[in-house]
């Protein structure tokens, strides 16, 4: 599908936000797009941060980190430029599995898909506590946006320049202490973070995984991970998995 760039600008040093508009698509929180770029053979998978539909059109918000040639090329697109997207891809989070209180846990560029999730959870009237981990204060983004949705936001930075000092699990510990049963959680971030979260909070939650992909729609088997229920494709069977399925 062809989408037209509306805006594309940096939020922090390496994190960019792009908005695109195109034909209406139904998006679940946790799903992603695959973007075709002129200089690269494979598309780039980017998680969907927000999707707003009106009058048969959908505005997508994508937040991405510039990590290589592909994402660097993406920064060159501006107002009016067209991009070929496959959207929506992947399964998305299950909103119904959680109760009236939930936790969202994001690390770095794992934060964006949690935004649409928070929006949907808040629309269902759930109480949403958000824990975000970043390396340093200058890398923090979307704290205000989550607060505006009515979420309680706690930020942790590894160097202590903002919020709790340490990892996101330290921030969770500071809020929930040791004896409080944490509610159902939804997490997205680096594997090291997911591993720490699972060992801290147990298997009662969902986690979004990231892997180097070929196609993005389940045919090439490039991103298959071993799980407790056998081989699963991150792009098609995921990217969201029940935490208890994952071998981290």
């Amino acid at each position, binding site marked *: 599908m062809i989408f037209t760039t509306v805006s594309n600008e940096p939020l922090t040093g390496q994190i960019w936000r792009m908005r695109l508009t195109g034909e209406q698509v139904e998006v679940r929180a946790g799903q992603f797009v695959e973007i075709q770029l002129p200089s690269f*053979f*494979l598309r780039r998978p980017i998680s969907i941060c927000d999707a707003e539909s009106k009058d048969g059109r959908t505005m997508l918000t994508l937040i991405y980190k510039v990590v290589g040639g592909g994402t660097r090329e993406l920064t060159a697109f501006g107002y009016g430029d067209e991009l070929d997207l496959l959207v929506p891809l992947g399964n998305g989070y299950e909103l119904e599995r959680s109760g009236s209180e939930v936790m969202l846990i994001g690390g770095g560029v794992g934060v964006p898909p949690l935004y649409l999730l928070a929006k949907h959870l808040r629309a269902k009237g759930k109480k949403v506590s958000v824990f975000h981990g970043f390396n340093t204060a200058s890398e923090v983004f979307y704290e205000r946006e989550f607060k505006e949705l009515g979420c309680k936001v706690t930020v942790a930075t590894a160097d202590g320049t903002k919020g709790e000092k340490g990892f996101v699990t330290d921030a969770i510990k500071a809020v929930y202490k040791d004896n409080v049963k944490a509610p159902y959680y939804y997490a997205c971030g680096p594997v090291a973070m997911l591993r720490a979260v699972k060992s801290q909070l147990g298997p009662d939650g969902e986690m979004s995984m990231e892997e180097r992909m070929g196609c993005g729609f389940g045919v090439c088997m490039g991103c298959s991970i071993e799980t407790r229920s056998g*081989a699963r494709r991150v792009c098609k069977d995921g990217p969201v998995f029940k935490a208890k399925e994952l071998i981290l």
Partner: protein
Amino acid sequence: MNMMSVILSGVELANPVIPASGTFGFGEEMSGWYDLNCLGAISFKGTTREARYGNPLPRIAECGNYGMINAVGLQNPGIEEVLKNQLPRLRELYKGVIIANVSGFSVEDYRYVCGLLDSEERVSLIEVNVSCPNVHNGGMAFGTTAEAAAEVTRAVRAVTKKPVYMKLSPNVTDIVPIACACADAGADGLCLINTVLGMRIDIRRRMPVIANRYGGYSGKGIFPISLRMVNQVARGLLQAGYEQVPIIGCGGVETAEDVIEMMMAGASAVEVGAANLRNPMVCKEIIERLPEVMRELGIAELREIVGACA
């Protein structure tokens, strides 16, 4: 017969375009993008005797916009599961010609899987992969010598009456004697090429990108290589007196023009592989564009151009 139809060992395809094994799963996921019934045939994911998880990750490395390297390592549910679940489901989605792609780690593996497929009426043709570069102690080793390729061919020939097409590796010094050895051993046809052994290095980490170190390079960057090898085999077979051994050309095909070029080189039908991963609609788009290109080039019937440059 319509102007785009082609014949592979008595099996008629409505057009020459076949998604290549490993880039199309078992059709289910692709059926979400378009109606699969426009396809000339479908070659399903390489299937082995036992279920396989495949290689460790990362399995994919990119090569600019020329293509990609994969080292998936034949992840598949195993032949019994495929016969029970994937194949019936594929038949529901697709009424056309189904090609079973088979791989193995021993001659006995190939014999076993092809023996089971022989009585499977939904399969019209068997493509025997002796050229996977991503599995140890087997796979490609069978496709890299004429003797081993012939041994697999004979074993498979003995257990099935279905047309047998041997899928050959480009990672050899001279592909023609291997092709002739397969034909001698009873292969009905050939499919070439599988991926070209390649490598990428992450220069920041000083490590191979692919966990398995090397992988199979595919995509438009290999088109001149596959075209050359199809042509060499087509000419070699003719010179050796094999006039009825059709070739399925494969490697880097992305456009309707590529399909025609591949057929002129000697292919009776053409597989589209890595391009499916970049653009899931590519096979449908090629098929829709073919009549226009045929008109431009003054081609009345596609099968007439097979081997025009052989």
